[in-house]
């Protein structure tokens, strides 16, 4: 694997969908495949990734780096009990979740220098600029949802936010104010129904400035989000991911989303109660098997 293509963002736009549990166990599954992994708790202000690894307290955490108590991000990497798995704990300093732009850019720079096969970013819920920007900085994006409508809504909204922000960055970089203005118009679909879909947007964009519009569209076709539907109980639940993929294709022009699933499993609750990762506590459980399948997919 390319050493510089190792940052994987794990995003659960709706809270409570199992993002941290999946992050921790995915780190272990990857380590079992011989990969060196560092899991980073970026759910700042509500960090709990360490507890899933059974770590009760941490002498150093990400907030120490952000507050310049240590120089390098690597200084706050802790070893876990699992071979080849390190963790950066979040910390609970009040206000730490509101990262300033410079802090965010510094963090992204340091994340890309960590010497390992995978850096897993356990990001906060929601679609704030911070979360979207970390997902843009990552080489892979895993979007976690449950089969329920509110969670599916949030996943779609997150992807849409990420698409719009990527386009805004692109148009700014190209200094194309006309397309930036068109992008703003596309945020008001009731007033501009012809811009409701990305296909419609790019049709209008090409008329405005084809030189910039064409590579921007090509950039979007390269997006390959991995949507993970967690806590699947029935076949009907499993099919919900397909609906999101259809909407992404129809409205956002994203044609290559991959949908995977994780089955509902009582072993997860039992492991969390014991402060142990499921892959260690119940390695043959359906959850563990599904996580291993996902690990194989992202390798």
């Amino acid at each position: 694997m390319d050493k510089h293509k190792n940052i994987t963002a794990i995003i659960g736009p709706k809270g409570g969908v199992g993002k941290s549990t999946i992050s921790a166990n995915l780190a272990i599954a990857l380590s079992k495949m011989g990969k060196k992994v560092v899991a980073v708790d970026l759910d700042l202000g509500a960090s709990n990734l360490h507890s899933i690894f059974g770590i009760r307290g941490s002498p150093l955490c990400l907030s120490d780096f952000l507050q310049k108590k240590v120089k390098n991000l690597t200084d706050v990497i802790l070893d876990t009990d699992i071979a080849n798995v390190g963790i950066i704990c979040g910390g609970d300093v009040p206000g730490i979740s509101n990262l300033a732009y410079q802090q965010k850019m510094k963090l992204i720079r340091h994340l890309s220098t960590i010497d390992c096969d995978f850096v897993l970013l356990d990001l906060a819920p929601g679609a704030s600029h911070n979360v979207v920007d970390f997902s843009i900085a990552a080489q892979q994006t895993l979007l976690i949802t449950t089969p329920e409508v509110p969670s599916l809504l949030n996943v779609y909204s997150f992807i849409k936010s990420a698409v719009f922000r990527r386009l805004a960055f692109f148009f700014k970089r190209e200094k194309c104010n006309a397309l930036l203005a068109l992008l703003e118009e596309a945020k008001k679909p009731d007033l501009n129904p012809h811009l409701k879909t990305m296909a419609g947007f790019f049709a209008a964009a090409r008329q405005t400035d084809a030189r910039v519009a064409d590579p921007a569209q090509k950039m979007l076709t390269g997006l390959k989000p991995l949507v993970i539907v967690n806590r699947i109980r029935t076949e009907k639940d499993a099919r919900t991911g397909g609906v999101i993929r259809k909407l992404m294709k129809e409205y956002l022009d994203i044609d290559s989303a991959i949908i995977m699933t994780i089955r509902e499993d009582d072993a997860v609750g039992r492991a969390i109660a014991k402060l142990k990762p499921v892959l260690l506590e119940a390695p043959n459980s359906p959850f563990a098997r599904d996580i291993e399948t996902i690990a194989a997919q992202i390798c």
Partner: protein
Amino acid sequence: MILVFSADALRGNILKKILRRIGVESLFFNRILDADSTIAQHAPDMVIFDTNGCFPDEVNHLRNLCQAPEQPAAIVLGDAAVIHSFEGPFIPGDRCLPDPLDPERIVAMVKEMTSDQARDKVTENDTLEEDLKGLLNL
């Protein structure tokens, strides 16, 4: 259309024949890669995987296929100890039919699943898609 995979050509042809008898067209493969690529390209309405005579890695491959969310509904046949491991949200226990091969039971299961699919197709996903579109103002 139903896709049938069996490593055992005799059992595969029996399955094809009993399906034809109830008016259901099927494609039979006894190489797993052929079955795999056909599923990817043509998305059959249903698959019947016969694990009898499969190597362990073939069984694993079939199990992974069954656990993929967008795979068609499946019936799994074979040794009871092997097919038990396929059970889960995508393959309820009653769709794992242990040996010996029972044509009447397979036919009954195919008919039941076909009528369920016809009913479900027009409700579940369409409703969810419409709900999401409405809520997202699409």
